[in-house]
């Protein structure tokens, strides 16, 4: 073993902030390293890569990333990211945040940014609950799951995030789990290089809150579960990629289309004459 304890990723992270706050067995660290790897492989100029999040355990990712990083307020990462991207189209802007942040309080911004096809990349860590605030249910929590605010079992139907993303207009939609480190990393790389609004959902263990209360064992058990119960179905209609409690996890790339972005559609003023201005 070497004495030189510098991890090759240390240049991409703010190593002086390690250890991070995430629990033992949490999938976030793994998801994070997949993102870093993808960014590195993408060949993008790291000085032009930006990462934005809202609040949550996942939301802590930007603060650990050694590029321009923005930890905004709960639910507002997307409009903030949109401002960055539209004001400086040279930037590659990625939002990395949690299911609650992006789809509970932030749901409206998500569907609108997708609709507009703003050229930003959304990576959502779906751990089926609000980890940071201690494990309440959220819009992705399966029916009947126990959380601190669904002590008798969750009685709300969850969203199918990939379907919602597709219905809202995303041009790239994929889902992976934390165990799919290589495919996930490759998928993130694709998304970073894709023009338009991309969405990647990562199913990820939260042993401390979600796992514990639902008798899923620790993080390792959840990872093993993903390995055994995931099934890759590229190109399937996202509507059919519903997730159910303790059931099969459909993963894969579901949408990959081309469509003019918000900036592509901007009026070309060189063509404007007085008539267009009425």
């Amino acid at each position, binding site marked *: 073993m070497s004495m030189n304890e510098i991890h090759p990723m240390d240049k991409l992270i703010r190593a002086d902030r390690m250890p991070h*706050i995430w629990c033992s067995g949490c999938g976030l660290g793994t998801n994070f390293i997949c993102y870093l790897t993808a960014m590195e492989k993408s060949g993008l100029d790291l000085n032009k890569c930006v990462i934005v999040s809202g609040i949550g355990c996942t939301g802590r990712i930007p603060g650990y990333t050694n590029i321009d990083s923005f930890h905004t307020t709960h639910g507002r990462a997307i409009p903030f990211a949109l401002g960055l991207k539209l004001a400086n189209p040279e930037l590659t802007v990625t939002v990395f945040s949690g299911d609650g942040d992006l789809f509970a309080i932030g749901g409206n911004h998500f569907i609108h940014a997708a609709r507009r096809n703003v050229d930003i990349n959304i990576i959502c860590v779906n751990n089926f609950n609000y980890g940071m605030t201690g494990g309440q249910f959220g819009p992705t929590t399966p029916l009947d799951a126990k959380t601190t605010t669904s002590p008798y079992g969750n009685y709300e139907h969850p969203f199918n995030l990939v379907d919602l993303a597709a219905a809202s207009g995303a041009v790239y939609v994929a889902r992976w789990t934390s165990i799919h480190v290589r495919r996930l990393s490759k998928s993130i790389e694709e998304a970073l290089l894709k023009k338009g609004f991309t969405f990647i959902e990562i199913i990820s263990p939260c042993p401390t809150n979600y796992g514990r209360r639902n008798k899923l064992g620790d993080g390792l058990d959840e990872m093993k579960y993903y390995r055994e119960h995931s099934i890759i179905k590229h190109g399937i209609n996202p509507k059919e990629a519903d997730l159910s409690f303790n059931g099969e996890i459909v993963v894969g790339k579901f949408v990959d289309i081309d469509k003019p972005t918000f900036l592509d559609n901007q009026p070309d003023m060189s063509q404007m004459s007085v008539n267009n201005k009425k």
Partner: protein
Amino acid sequence: MKHIEIKIGGFGGQGIVLSGFIMGKAASIYDKKNATLTQSYGPESRGGACSAQLIVSEEEVDYPEVQKPEILMVISQEAYEKFTPCLVKGGILIYDEDLVNSVNNLPKETRIYSIPSTRFAEELGRKIVTNIIMLGFFTAITSVISYESMKKSVLSSIPAGTEELNLKAFQKGYEFGLEKVNGV
């Protein structure tokens, strides 16, 4: 003992706050004293520094924070380092000897009691009862809260179905404590 301040320190996930709660409930509801429990913790769900502070008093508790604890119970080295400087002269230090390994720089005249509670808990088959063992130990060593009240409080604060295990743990710590105190 008109007014006593107790501090419990460790990592998130070790049941620090629950320990304080059980003590406070015993003092307040069963021993009919006044008890005020406060807590502090960081952004981490697990593994971050975490502490509970309990004031037990025969009078009303105005200011709720513990400034100079008479009793300090620690379950991590980090908590040990952080909190021992506050301990009053002649105070009591209780710690888990599996998790706190270098005990030095203590205030003068500190009375020190250690217990391998994590190991005991592992022997009982559930690491999670470490804090209950510590509570038993605490009960034997200090006279802040009566044995009966503490036992009642443990039983009414734990999940239904785990009574037996917790009682065993409590008893284990209590007996170990008695031995220490009685110098057996």
